[in-house]
């Protein structure tokens, strides 16, 4: 039993990482209706910016918020400069550009900061909070940050006019234009917010996995998985999906004999496939039903 609780907690700690990423993935999916494959690399680049700011002597929280601001602006800029001109292009054109961005950002980060791993500080420290080796202060802090981001997002979309305009622009762009919503800018804003959330995710993840240009590769995969399991239309679902992927991965590694830890990632992904076979729109996802 102790072992079980131990593994669940460890799973939640890893899951918090995936949850961060899943949240950023869902944000952009809501706005543009596509997976952004470059999301992880954008988050990685943001984290390097934060690292660089700290190297220049910025205190942690100053670097944290400045990085969020820069990432937001960069997200808006990427939408305006690259995706606005190809807005009506077929989905494959978008995919190609996502992949191109992925590679460009990745090698650019390597070019500027090199591929050697760097330590990234945690604002919460690394002391254990629930006994040795269970849940570190950073893990707990990361979960709290995910929770805060989720609450802020909920409040923004539910209670502000601009949040309402963004939801309208995503749900029905033509009708949104007819009531005067500037749909193009809402898209850019969505990109900015996704980039900012990605930056938060990156800065929370980096103390765990260390900072280097390839840090996001597997995390992005699991973030996607979490987002899909939770349902791509639901930020809460994405976060819960991220946590469940982390927990399942850990439990599978511990309790399923023979496979051991080598296959735990495959088991987690197999479970995701199973969930999607039963509920194609994810556990918390909305099926789109239209009344004629």
């Amino acid at each position, binding site marked *: 039993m102790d072992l079980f609780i131990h593994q669940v907690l460890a799973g939640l700690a890893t899951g918090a990482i995936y949850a961060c990423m899943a949240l950023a993935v869902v944000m952009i999916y809501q706005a543009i209706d596509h997976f952004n494959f470059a999301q992880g690399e954008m988050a990685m680049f943001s984290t390097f910016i934060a690292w660089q700011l700290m190297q220049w002597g910025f205190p942690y929280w100053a670097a944290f918020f400045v990085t969020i601001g820069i990432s937001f602006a960069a997200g808006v800029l990427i939408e305006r400069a690259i995706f606005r001109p190809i807005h009506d292009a077929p989905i494959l054109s978008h995919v190609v550009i996502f992949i191109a961005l992925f590679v460009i950002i990745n090698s650019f980060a390597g070019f500027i900061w090199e591929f050697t791993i760097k330590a990234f500080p945690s604002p919460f420290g690394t002391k254990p909070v629930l006994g040795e080796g269970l849940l570190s202060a950073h893990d707990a802090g990361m979960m709290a940050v995910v929770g805060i981001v989720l609450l802020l997002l909920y409040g923004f979309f539910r209670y502000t006019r601009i949040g309402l305009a963004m939801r309208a622009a995503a749900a029905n762009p033509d009708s949104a*234009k*007819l*009531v*005067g*919503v*500037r749909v193009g800018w809402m898209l850019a804003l969505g990109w900015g917010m996704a980039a900012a959330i990605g930056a938060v995710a990156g800065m929370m993840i980096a103390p765990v996995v260390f900072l280097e240009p390839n840090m996001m590769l597997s995390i992005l995969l699991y973030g996607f998985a979490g987002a899909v399991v939770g349902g791509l239309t639901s930020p809460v679902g994405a976060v819960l999906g991220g946590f469940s992927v982390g927990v399942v991965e850990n439990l599978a590694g511990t309790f399923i004999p023979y496979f051991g830890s080598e296959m735990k990632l495959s088991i987690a992904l197999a479970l995701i496939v199973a969930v999607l076979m039963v509920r194609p729109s994810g556990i918390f996802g909305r099926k789109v039903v*239209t*009344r004629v």
Partner: protein
Amino acid sequence: MSAQFLSVRNLNAFYGQTQVLFGLDFDMAEGGITTLLGANGAGKTSTLRALSRMLHTVGDIRFEGEEISRKATEDVARLGIAHVPEGRGTFVRLTVEENLQLGAISRPDKRAIANDVDRIFNYFPKLRERYYQQAGTLSGGEQQMLAIGRALMLRPKLMLLDEPSFGLAPLIVQELFGILRTLNRQEKVSMFLVEQNASLALDLADHAYLLETGRVVMSGPAKDIREDEGIRRSYLGY
């Protein structure tokens, strides 16, 4: 009569390579109700889409003297032209409240917006009962009322109505057109109405244009067209 309210000259519209409107000319007076009649595929919806800049066009469209044919859809809306589109354009996953709030999204005057919601409830009491409900769960008639309510939230000078009677039971249609008449008189909203139901539209409107395969073939006071048996038989089919 200010002929400058809405004036369209030599309007041509295209879907890709296909031309759908051929040199339309029409005018509309402020405060009036003008109807555009025609069969399926005559270009009625395309005309409305051209006015709210959702369609590629060549030609002049002047609204209150201002050329709008180069503007974006959202900027045309902000000039006070509220388009109630074909199929109503309801935000089905949002609540009735949110749909109405969206209608006023371009307005800065928050206090007046709250009053306007109440005013709309007076015209459409059903919307008050359904206020916190998801708009997609409303009946067709209620959704049409919501669409008109949403358009009113803009405090429009001109409303573009695309077949508001479509798919509704005759009694509901009667009620709806009664409300449109009241809105026109009390709120001083000018209306440009596209309809297949010609007799209904001619009763409500003061002026009518008849469209056939993208061209205006007839125009005049609604009363004259209604009473002209020749036109009725050959074009309106009733």
